[in-house]
């Protein structure tokens, strides 16, 4: 029984995800609070080289197996279940991301251990683990206690600063050989890239981003005009993309891109966590929303309670007038 703090080191297509570093920072705090080591779990095939980036952890458990070449949730869950049963860590921190979310769901079910989901923070209180979790689209925060000798925690992006987790170092790497089935009931086949020819929103200095508040596909023109004047482009939150009003390549958020423009104008976006994680790093965030209680105002630098359909043209006019 190790009782250690483990972080699932998420990596995708050859890169360690930013959120992994955030989890290492959080994990280190928890390990310190409990007086135990922090270990990273690296699953993959030919990915062992990434261990060098995980210096924030004391050691890295590396499992290399063909079935783990891509983040196949079934294969990952199988491997993790074996590891957890054998080593019994105190907690496994799993990123809440598209890559790792399924594992987060399957693993506690398989092991019948507690899961706390949507954690924006975790702390040690009286020797036990307490998590602060965001529910109801970010509108409420619950504090939960997570008792048990082995628990799984789903951590939201943004819990800590990734930069602090990027520690160069040489953690000791432990190769773990696991007997895993060559193929399971879920088989990765291929990646499908988005249609080419559209712009790369991650490269824009200005993004005018539209959400449900834009109301109609027609009104997106209002955003396009302003974005054009400011030398930027239009992006969107999930509901607009789901409607087919803009292509997938324009999506910001958990299933879309993470953007860090100089200006992010959130036009009619409520600010649910899945969206916020994709844009909170923007230098200046201006949010316009009809709802004064919209969670976006917590992450924005500037806010306006108003109707984007009314305000976008007025802002466009003001910009045009200034430009002369």
């Amino acid at each position: 029984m190790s009782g250690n703090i483990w972080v699932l080191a998420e990596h995708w297509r050859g890169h360690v995800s930013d959120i992994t570093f955030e989890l290492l920072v959080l994990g280190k705090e928890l390990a310190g609070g409990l007086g135990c080591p922090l270990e990273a779990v690296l699953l993959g095939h030919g990915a062992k080289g990434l261990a060098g980036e995980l210096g924030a952890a004391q050691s890295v458990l590396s499992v290399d197996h063909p079935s783990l070449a891509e983040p196949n949730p079934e294969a990952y869950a199988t491997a993790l279940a074996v590891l957890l049963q054998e080593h019994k860590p105190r907690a496994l921190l799993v990123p809440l991301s598209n890559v790792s979310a399924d594992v987060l769901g399957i693993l506690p079910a398989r092991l019948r251990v507690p899961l706390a989901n949507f954690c924006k923070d975790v702390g040690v209180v009286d020797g036990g683990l307490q998590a602060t979790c965001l529910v109801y689209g970010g509108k409420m925060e619950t504090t939960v206690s997570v008792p048990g000798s082995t628990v799984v925690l789903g951590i939201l992006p943004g819990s800590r600063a990734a930069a602090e987790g990027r520690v160069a170092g040489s953690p000791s790497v432990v190769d773990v050989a696991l007997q895993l089935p060559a193929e399971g009931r879920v088989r990765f086949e291929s990646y499908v890239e988005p249609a080419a020819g559209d712009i790369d929103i991650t490269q824009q200095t200005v993004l005018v981003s539209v959400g449900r508040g834009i109301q109609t596909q027609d009104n997106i023109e209002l955003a396009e005009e302003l974005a054009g004047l400011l030398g930027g482009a239009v992006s969107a939150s999930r509901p607009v993309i789901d409607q087919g009003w803009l292509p997938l390549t324009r999506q910001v958020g958990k299933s879309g891109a993470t953007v860090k423009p100089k200006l992010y104008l959130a036009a009619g976006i409520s600010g649910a966590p899945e969206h916020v994680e994709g844009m909170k790093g923007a230098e200046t965030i201006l949010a316009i929303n009809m709802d004064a209680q919209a969670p976006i105002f917590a992450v924005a630098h500037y806010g306006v309670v108003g109707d984007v359909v009314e305000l976008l043209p007025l802002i466009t006019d003001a910009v045009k007038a200034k430009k002369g």
Partner: protein
Amino acid sequence: MAHATTAPSETPAQVTLENLFETPRGRDLLTCIQCGLCAGTCPYGEVIEWAPRRIISMLREGQIEEVFASDSLLACVTCYACMAKCSRGLRLTEVLLPLVKEQIFVRLPEVPAELQKALSNTLRYGNPQGESARKRAAWAASAGVPIRVLPQDPRPVDVLWFVECYTSFHPRGQDNCRATAKVLHALGVDFAILGHEEKCAGECARLAGETGLFETLTDQNMKVLGKYQFNRLVTSGAHAYDAFLHGYQAAGLKVPVEHTTPFFAARLDALKPLLTKKLGYTVTYHDACVLGRHNGFFEEPRRLLGAIPGVKLVEMTHNRVNSICCGGGGGGMWLDTFYKAKGYERLADRRVKEAVATGADVLAVSCPYEVSRFEDSLKVLGFDKKMVVRDVVELLAEALGS
């Protein structure tokens, strides 16, 4: 030229396609002489494949299914123009078009997204905007005059003022209802609102083809209305007025129903002395389809405007019964994206060009849809510095000087 006004009892409430020809108004349709005045007067006559005369022709031939399979009548904004001009006085927009639009709606393979959202929101939240019902009376806090909300104070009242959705939630609509409250207060009217218990009257949902939604809303509103005692129902919503006058009276609403514009016009003797502030505007009045063509209230808004000191009235080319619809009725309010995709010109753009041509500063209206639609057109066409849109009641409130 037949000018159709309808007494409440004449409009059949439960006409279906099956019993259509058993009802007097339904049988009348068969007397169509195929003159084509309907198609000629329709503002979207160039794009609507099935003008009323062609629909009647197909009905006679037993080929109505072909009409139901077409989506071109989504462009019918139920402006009552065809009915007003029909040489036989047939109840086209009252009887024929809603039935046909309903059949088209239920057969649509995909309901255009914006319309779908408006209808789903109306069913769930009682307003097409999808706002919480709890916020429906939020505007009242800044009205500047006391507003009685019946759920909180259920004593009997003289006037139950049914505010409606765009007036309650849209910022420009809220300007309208704050103005209305001021004028009601200035006249010493004993009035109250339903607050969060009020739901959309559903007339435009009905005329888009969602009759089931209209029935559900009628049931809900009638239950709420049944809780309170009031002598008359006055509404700011022109379409709501039609709903109360016809659909709701058929469902058992017993009190007289009025729209705010004619209601104030009837009290002009008391109101005129209170209009003390001089407004130096040249105003052109746009006749709302429901108030004007459908219910004959052409002179009332003009009398109100004429009573405001300093207001000069000019007429557009198409005025009174010839007014050109803003495009908001019959579902049009939520089909702009659909119309754009089909390349249709916006009716509001057409109308606004006429308004600007009069040289007026103010385009006066009396239906909540018109405000946002015309303001949008003014902006798009670049006329928004030349002309503003004001509801007649906003101008009255401004002239009250308080």
